[in-house]
């Protein structure tokens, strides 16, 4: 199974995007020195779990990002650089050697060793543990033995054969096929290490997480937990003095848990909360006025598309798909329906990844009503179309707006068809039922073009619900994964993207962005591509 994560629209109602303008401008006033011992309060939702291998939503990963230091992080250009790792090297993209930095310890004093990673990853990959991030390890050799095809069978192995300890500070990861983007992948939450104390017994096989661990996770990061996770109330972390990496310029962080984003925003307005990571939709129109320059935006990785079921005869011709794409005025919808909180998209990959090019979709994505109608009529496009969407994610408004544009510009009948849940929509698409066009959203797992192409369009890709299949495209992706350098990999991925532009299995609509706000007490607020506040950059105005 490929690495995959569909846009968590329900959790992140109005997500995120936009242009390459790097991170948002710094918030707050620049006057006044910073207070290195102050505590920043950040609004989150109740995390589902606080175990790296089981945390895939933004609230939990925000807390874990404070408690853990990743092997790699991403620079301004979203290329990976080493944090907890000294060196990550490979000669064939298949066997990766990871060397750890010296002198790193967990919050309880245990040294961080190769075993800390191997144990954590084995636990994550072991099927019966049913961890949310289990699929992140599917490229590692031996994964199949831990996750038998018959779900009820007991796995034949409890550890990944691809993970080998060389010495205390070095281990190797062998993948089942070359994958040039593996280093980028290592920046994800699933790859944090776990101390021995996290397990009931480190010698047990399979490993079992100790019961008390989740309420007070011990990590290797810049902050350690203060007390325990107070469910539905807060998680507080304080600076860890023994941290060997770059030290943050705040004394700690208080993650305040909200169930309702409007309550969270009300606390920000009252200056009781320092950062709101996603301003609620209802407040978007007034937030800019309320907050002034404390209202900020930054690029996020979300991409919204309209997908064509390629198995449906009505949409079999690429020209018909192109005509529909040309009949949509993306700018108008982004500005009117989304009040500029999303940006019109003209490419198949997000601007946040290396290798992104603007307007790869070409003329097919440029709004041109007359050309669109001509092309549509010439190719005998269907007289009536529908767009299926999930009713629980706030999509009705833009789907209706899109339909109205299609009606006006192509002279066709168009209706939005709601499904109760996104899962229902996907089940129907999988079963190749007649659902017409349907919405899809994508949030990346790691910053790489591959993550926007492989899972979505490769034959049998984990989120390829359109039944799209093109051997040339598949080959280009494979060549990219095996390419010796990132530059060469990007070239292959770009060629693959060009094929999408010709065949249009989906039409790109919008890139999301983080729309966030901060109080007068903090400055230098940055939100990264994973909708997390960068705790290394944020400062408290004293």
């Amino acid at each position, binding site marked *: 199974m490929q690495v995959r994560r569909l846009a968590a629209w329900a959790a992140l109602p109005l997500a995120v995007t936009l242009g390459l303008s790097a991170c948002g401008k710094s918030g707050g006033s620049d006057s006044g020195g910073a207070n290195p011992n102050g505590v920043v309060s950040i609004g989150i939702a109740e995390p589902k779990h606080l175990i790296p291998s089981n945390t895939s939503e933004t609230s939990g990963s925000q807390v874990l990002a404070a408690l853990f230091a990743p092997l790699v992080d991403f620079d301004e250009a979203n290329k990976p650089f080493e944090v907890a790792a000294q060196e990550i090297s490979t000669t064939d993209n298949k066997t990766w050697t990871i060397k750890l930095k010296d002198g790193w310890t967990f919050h309880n004093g245990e040294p961080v060793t190769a075993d800390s990673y191997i144990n954590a990853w084995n636990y994550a990959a072991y099927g019966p543990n049913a961890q949310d991030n*289990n699929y992140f390890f599917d490229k590692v050799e031996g994964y199949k033995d831990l996750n038998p095809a018959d779900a009820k069978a007991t796995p034949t192995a409890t550890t990944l054969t691809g993970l080998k300890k060389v010495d205390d500070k070095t281990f190797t990861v062998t993948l089942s096929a070359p994958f040039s983007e593996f280093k980028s992948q290592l920046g994800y939450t699933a790859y944090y290490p776990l101390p021995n104390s996290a397990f009931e017994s480190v010698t047990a096989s399979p490993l079992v997480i100790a019961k008390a661990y989740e309420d007070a996770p011990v990590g290797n990061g810049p902050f350690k937990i203060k007390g325990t996770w107070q469910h539905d109330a807060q998680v507080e972390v304080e600076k860890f003095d023994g941290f060997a990496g770059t030290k943050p310029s705040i004394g700690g962080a208080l993650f305040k848990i909200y169930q309702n984003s409007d309550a969270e925003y009300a606390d920000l307005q009252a200056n009781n909360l320092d950062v709101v990571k996603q301003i609620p939709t209802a407040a978007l129109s007034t937030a800019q006025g309320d907050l002034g320059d404390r209202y900020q935006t930054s690029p996020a990785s979300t991409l919204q598309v309209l997908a064509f079921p390629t198995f449906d005869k009505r949409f079999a011709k690429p020209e018909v798909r192109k005509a529909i794409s040309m009949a949509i005025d993306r700018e108008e919808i982004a500005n009117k329906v989304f009040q500029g909180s999303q940006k019109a998209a003209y490419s198949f990959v997000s601007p946040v990844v290396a290798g992104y090019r603007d307007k790869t979709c070409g003329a097919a994505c440029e709004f041109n009503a007359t050309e669109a109608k001509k092309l549509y009529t010439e190719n005998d496009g269907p007289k009536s179309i529908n767009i299926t969407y999930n009713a629980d994610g706030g999509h009705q408004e833009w789907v209706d707006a899109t339909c109205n544009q299609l009606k006006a510009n192509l002279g066709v009948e168009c209706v939005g068809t709601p499904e109760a849940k996104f899962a229902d929509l996907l089940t129907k698409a999988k079963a190749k039922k007649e659902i017409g066009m349907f919405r899809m959203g994508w949030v990346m797992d790691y910053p790489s073009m591959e993550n926007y192409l492989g899972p979505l369009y490769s034959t049998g890709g984990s989120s390829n619900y359109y039944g799209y299949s093109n051997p040339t495209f598949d080959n280009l992706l494979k060549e990219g994964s095996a390419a010796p350098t990132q530059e060469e990999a990007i070239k292959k991925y770009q060629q693959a993207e060009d094929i999408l532009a010709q065949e249009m299995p989906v039409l790109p609509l919008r890139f999301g962005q983080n729309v966030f706000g901060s109080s007068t007490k903090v400055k230098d607020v940055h939100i990264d591509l994973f909708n997390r506040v960068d705790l290394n950059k944020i400062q408290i105005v004293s």
Partner: protein
Amino acid sequence: MFRYLVRRFLQMIMVFIATTLIVYSLMYLTGGDPIQALAGEKPVTDLQRAQLTVKYGLDQPFLVRYWNYLTDLLHGDFGTTLTGRPIKDILLDAWPVTMQLALIAILVTIIFGVTAGVIAGIRRGSIFDNATLVLTLIVIGIPSVVLAPLAQYLFTIQWKLFPTTASGSPTWYELVLPGVVLGSLSVATAMRLTRASVSENLRADFVRTARSKGMPGRRVIGIHVLRNSLIPIVTFLGVELGSLMAGAIVTESVFNVPGVGFQLSRALKTEDTPLVIGIVSVLVIVFLVANLIVDLLYAVLDPRIRYE
């Protein structure tokens, strides 16, 4: 009296079983796919699905699951949420908070609603009567979804009189504003009910008799009018406890009060079936007990009512 109580307890057990069965079947038969709900919009791997299905006993027949649930409940075990937290812990945290909130709300209702109602009932047609009638019309017309955010904006952001949201273990001060908002929803009804009841009793024969015997006005109102007027009000307050819980869903969300309404709305949002059922089970018990207390209070208020 004792026989009456025994009969009532037997009835309560049957009502409890029937209501939980209904809720249980509704949640499980129409609730969709709890495992997919847990994963959000992410696809669930077949293996993960199989593991979770066994873990939550979703592969067993409906009646077996319901039976297991009931027997666990008898042992005080509410099971775990879909994320693995014991529901008992959540309930133990949430109920005291909601009880505090409900207490404030009921006090607000009694102090403002009942008092104003009594005054208005005695002085029918006065300026006070007309003014409160108009006021209650306005309050009755505003639903809690509007009232709560409005009060929050005015009293905490504009004028900074109260904290904007409650903390994890809220203090009384933090609960005052949400409590008042919650209580104000029933103030209007309580006031009108009291007013009608008082003015009706003022015209009753026994009041005229008491007056004609030369009883002082204060005593007539205190003993003969008020005591008899309280019966419909007590009934209303008992039933209102239920609506307070429903109103708490909105109010607790707006003020981030980690009570039962907060948990229930989250459980519904994330389709956490075991948590919904756990909360509803306790809600049913609260309803039943409140109604029992109301029925027993009748006898205290009106000596003509006796339970055999």
